């Protein structure tokens, strides 16, 4: 009994009427983004999602440093080599065992076994393939890798040409993670513009735009994407192709956003504060950008954050079918193309790790988006 009152005491002290009033006043004085952050922090899964995403994006930006080798370094003698385990011993420090391969004389299938007599020393901050950071800065230091450059070091196995899957995974993250952002930015511009016009002007214009949106939504997306990306000339370089794919993805992705913006505009038009601004003599652009847009910006951010993972999935699917990015460009979808054949997957199940990366990233993004949506309305 005594213990309980002691435990409660600090709380009751805290909630004197003056304190409550003060905390309420603080609440009102906080800028909206602080309130959103407060709400967001309460969504535990969203917070975990954010904690997962930040290092992954960081790794993608400095891919050259985090990847043990470049994306194209191939050990042609070691196709489909299984993942290695890092061992630590007092004698050798950190090391992995090398491979010895035997070829089945009947099926010509190559099988790898761990060869304990071959020891590959592994170290932190080793020198290896040269890469450039953020454009001009060149370096050849890698976070982890074999101390003797050029040795095989496959932490998650190798692909059909004996390239390190982990390095390709990290390099591929750049395209896979950025294509969602770039694509969403494009559909954001389209969606804001068209949805805004539709919602603010209303009437006949609104009707026509809505019919067009319904039309686009009623077409099965994948066949259309397939047809559009097959239309890209094969002579285009990887960078042009990358932008073409983002445009194709966002051409269809903007519709949902446009509907959202329109709905917000329609409901806000009737709000008292808009009427007040109009009576106050504020011009049309002033009302739209000074009063209406800020009041639904958080909702738009939330629905954008839900669109990014969808774009990533779409790019992965297209590249998987061989219609998106083409090798030598590296993205998770391109990597998964190598896993299209069930026999390849059966001999080298680690080829599916890019898929696992996609799932983790999309899951984390969905959680963050969910948290943002809850936080978008902090006054609720």
């Amino acid at each position, binding site marked *: 009994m005594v213990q309980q009152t002691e435990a409660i005491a600090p709380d009751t002290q805290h909630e004197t009427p003056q304190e409550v009033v003060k905390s309420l006043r603080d609440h009102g004085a906080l800028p909206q983004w602080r309130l959103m952050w407060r709400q967001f922090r309460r969504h535990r899964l969203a917070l975990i999602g954010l904690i997962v995403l930040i290092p992954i994006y960081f790794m993608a930006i400095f891919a050259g440093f985090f990847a043990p080798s470049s994306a194209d370094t191939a050990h042609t003698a070691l196709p489909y080599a299984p993942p290695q385990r890092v061992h630590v011993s007092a004698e050798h420090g950190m090391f992995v065992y090398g491979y010895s391969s035997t070829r089945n004389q009947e099926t010509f299938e190559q099988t790898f076994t761990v060869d304990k007599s071959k020891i590959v020393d592994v170290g932190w901050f080793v020198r290896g393939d040269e890469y450039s950071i953020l454009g001009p800065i060149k370096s050849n230091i890698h976070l982890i890798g074999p101390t003797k450059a050029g040795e095989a070091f496959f932490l998650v196995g190798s692909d059909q040409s004996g390239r390190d899957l982990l390095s390709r995974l990290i390099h591929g993250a750049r395209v896979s993670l950025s294509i969602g952002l770039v694509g969403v930015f494009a559909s954001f511009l389209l969606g804001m513009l068209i949805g805004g016009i539709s919602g603010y002007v209303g009437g006949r214009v609104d009707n026509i735009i809505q019919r067009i949106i319904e039309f686009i*939504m009623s*077409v099965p997306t*994948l066949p259309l994407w397939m047809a559009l990306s*097959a239309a890209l000339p094969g002579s285009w370089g990887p960078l042009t192709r990358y932008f073409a794919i983002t445009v194709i993805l966002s051409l269809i992705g903007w519709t949902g956003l446009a509907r959202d913006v329109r709905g917000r505009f329609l409901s806000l038009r009737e709000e008292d504060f808009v009427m007040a601004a109009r009576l106050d003599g504020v011009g049309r652009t002033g009302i739209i950008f000074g009063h209406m847009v800020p009041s639904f910006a958080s909702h738009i951010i939330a629905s954008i954050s839900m669109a990014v993972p969808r774009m990533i999935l779409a790019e992965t699917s297209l590249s998987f079918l061989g219609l998106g990015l083409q090798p030598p460009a590296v993205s998770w979808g391109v990597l998964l193309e190598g896993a299209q054949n*069930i026999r390849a997957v059966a001999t080298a199940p680690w080829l599916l790790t890019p898929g696992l990366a996609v799932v983790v990233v999309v899951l984390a993004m969905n959680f963050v988006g969910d948290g943002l949506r809850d936080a978008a309305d902090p006054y609720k």
Partner: protein
Amino acid sequence: MLRFVARRLVWMVITLAAISFVTFVVIKLPPGDYTTTVIANAEARGQDIPDSQIAELKRHYGLDKPFIVQYLTWIKGVVLHGDLGQSFAWNQSVASLIGNRVLLSMVLSIASLLFVWAIAFPIGIYSALRQYSGGDYLASFLGFIGMAVPEFMLALVMMYIGFRYFGQSVGGLFSPEYADAAWNLGKLLDLISHLWVPIVVVGVAGTAGLIRITRANLLDELHKPYVATARAKGLPEWKLLLKYPVRMSLSPFFSTVGWLLPGLISGETIVSVVMSLPTSGPLLLGAVKSQDMYLVGSFVLILSTLTVIGTMLSDLALAWWDPRIRTRFQKG
């Protein structure tokens, strides 16, 4: 109601005309045409095709005519004779090539739709009624995972498990002995025993989305005053729940067809490519890659038509189910 149906029908025809035109534009976008593929193939074999023969090919397929003439010829054939044109690569009429495949695609999509409904609604309703229970958290978690896993990935994993642990290939829709057989009961049963894997794979993402929608809708309804009124009147809890809020929350049962169906068809296309199912997916992919334009156009046209019809039927069903929407239609 009749006026509503008539207006929707008119709108549907306009939509389809637009879809067919857009499809045709998209097919014509790439530089070159089918003869480019023929020339490339011949060069790959080390042959050289004389220009006169190429011109002959172009005349034969009507590729030398202006764009709009080509489109009108094609669409005239489709509307007047049900003739979808010729597939260049297969040298067959498109109709004979895709008839069975589109049918199987539709069977697969509709079966997936039923699967999605059968799984998503009970779980969604349960999640809402027992909000924050263990089951609710589990459903939400599985739902998120379902939305994050690409269909082809799931297909690959299923195939890998089947291959690795059951020693059988789960690809295809028929066992070898039935593949070319005529339709009979045995073949039908064989189809059903193969079909469930792709149905589950295609339906997972839609199920995850629908669970969340149903849950959110029902949660909105549960706190409305009419529920409290019914409870105050002493209606048994289960009867009250089933008769009012659950009924209202089941509206997406119909209204989701519009966005669920295009998604399922897309999912079906890619899953079929991975699992090599004899549906439209693999053929469409090949046709897209070789610029076999009438084949691609017909596929997109047929799939879109079926989607648009499905959406309209679902609108009608929604009007029948939900009195609020019915009155809105009758007024407008």
